[in-house]
């Protein structure tokens, strides 16, 4: 659930108010938004991803976590870590160049006794990845 909006970092752009799919935030006149309905947060972490200044922290728990401490979170460097993990920057997607899905899906051959999946694997390597002996 959303736990923190770091007011010192927030620039009041209200992007989180707009993109939050469960309408957790309320805009305030001229200031940082408020976390108005924490109980509606469904932990998709979209607000963190779209925040241009890394001012939001979402806990991975489905219940409010009273132990979350703003000073500790800021000091820990965890702010912005979701964007970094997904290759986003300043609230914008950065492409998937550092997402090696291509290897993970096909690197490990299936159990040789599973004829269907072995065949799929070999064809996939040839047709989609093109890293076979003739590549």
């Amino acid at each position, binding site marked *: 659930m959303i736990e923190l909006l770091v007011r010192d970092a927030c620039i009041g752009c209200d992007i989180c108010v707009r993109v939050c799919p469960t309408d957790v935030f309320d805009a305030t006149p001229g200031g940082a938004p408020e976390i108005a309905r924490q109980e509606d947060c469904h932990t998709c972490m979209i607000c963190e991803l779209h925040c241009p200044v890394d001012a939001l922290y979402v806990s991975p728990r489905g219940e409010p976590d009273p132990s979350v401490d703003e000073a500790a979170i800021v000091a820990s460097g965890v702010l912005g870590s979701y964007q970094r993990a*997904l290759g986003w920057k300043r609230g914008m997607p950065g492409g998937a160049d550092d997402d090696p899905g291509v290897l993970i899906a096909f690197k490990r051959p299936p159990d040789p006794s599973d004829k269907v999946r072995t065949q799929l694997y070999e064809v996939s390597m040839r047709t989609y990845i093109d890293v076979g002996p003739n590549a």
Partner: protein
Amino acid sequence: MAAVQHLADHLARGAYDLNLTTDVLVIGGGPAGMWAALAAVEAGARVVLVEKGYAGTAGPLSSANTGIYYIKPDDPIHRDGMVTARMPLAFGLADERWLERTLDQSYANLETMTRWGFRWPKNELGQEFRARLRGPDTLIFLRKQLVKAQVRILDHSPVMELLVSDGVAAGAAGVNRQTGDTWGVRAAAVVLATGGTAFLSGVAGTRGNTGDGYLFAAEAGAEFSGMEFTSQYAPAPYGGVLSRGAHLQYATLTDNDGNEITRGRKTVEAIQNTGAAWAIVDKATDDATRDMLRKTHAHIFLHLERLGIDPFRERYRIDFRCEGSIRAVGGLAIDDDLATTVPGLFAAGDITSKETVVGAGPPGGGPAAAWAIASGSWAGASASRFAKRLGPAAHSRAVDAIGRTGLRAAERRTSAVSIADVTRSVQAEMIPFERNYWRSGPNLEASLVRFASEWNEIRDGALATDGATARDSARNLLRAREAAAMLATARWINTTALARPETRGLHRRSDYPNLDPAHEHHLTTGGVDEIWVRRRPVSAGAKAIAS
């Protein structure tokens, strides 16, 4: 507090703050709805898309990645292999032609995304991999395409009810939950793409998925198929909410006594019988593999990290969380054109029945994602054709606002049961393993009696109460409609579950733990106040596979 009568009355009179007219109205801004909108534009329609949350961040895909079918049409070995691998999981209820059709359309749409400039994952040789979608990237990319295609988007604008003209879908009306304003869209055709429901089990990305579209459709007279195949559960770290298990193919799972177990039913049994299940991602033995896993499934590992778990080095406790009808099977019955049984009303994605593609299930993320974008395309194109046939006359039709339970009570009084009561009652039945993972005749019967009495009460008495502001009232009305939708959905599910005394795919009965060939048929259901269920034989295509 008074019931929210004024808002419901506004809606009943058609006195909307915002009035729009369009060819195709798409309800729901997840992948299926956005593809439906794009396909309708492509076919020449003007399109309005309304979304309860925000089109581009709404729905379960927002919270993680998903695999998806990307199989080239000129690749018979891979295609046939997929069909051969998939069909036994369908338990006799799928139709090979629909699976092939889905593979083709999914491939075509992913190629289209490439033309539009989507940035796919690459390996170190610069080669792209298109069989997996990054959730948040994909959704926001599709929203940009909507904007380019001049689709009118209404965000934070939940539908409250459909508008119907003489039995034909003719639009929808709702509220803006951030302003409290009402809106109405008159349309020549409507596409429902509001997804499934996890009954607010807390799983990441599913708060908006309360089954609203099921109720809207049923009020218009639409029918459902396969609603019993909706007992979908998925692994999540204990105390966490991200129910994704892709990394567990590299894990060892154990029960609470340390015995090794497999993923799925054995995991649930371990939790039920030994008190807990545990996982350690110990089959990723070198740093390179760990690094790839971490990057490929970044969402999963980020959640684990924030829970203080190092999944490669420590055994951590896992849970199986209820996803209900999300990426499950059952939903609105549809024909080849993705038309529901209500003229002018089309459907796409998780809200539809996927039986023709995955049978009794489980479909998993890949097939569900492929189905979302493929069925979205078909529904959008069909809706556009329907709108063209109607022509301009569509907009001069007299329409009725048909929303009832949760919106417009039969009597001018407040319901004796509250939104919280209804939600608790539904959750107590649809979330626990001992009620919904393993269903039983006596439990189903008891729940249906309770559900019927609660339904009658909220049908007669108003569920929503007035708030301090128009915005609060709109939110209260939305909560009431959501509760009604979840209760109605639980009734369709449990009615069909009771009518299937066997265990098949995503439907498990503790009193009938085996598959029974006598029940190789579909179950159709529907009705709002009185729920009915009947059998339908499997299609010729499915029979050909089974024999």
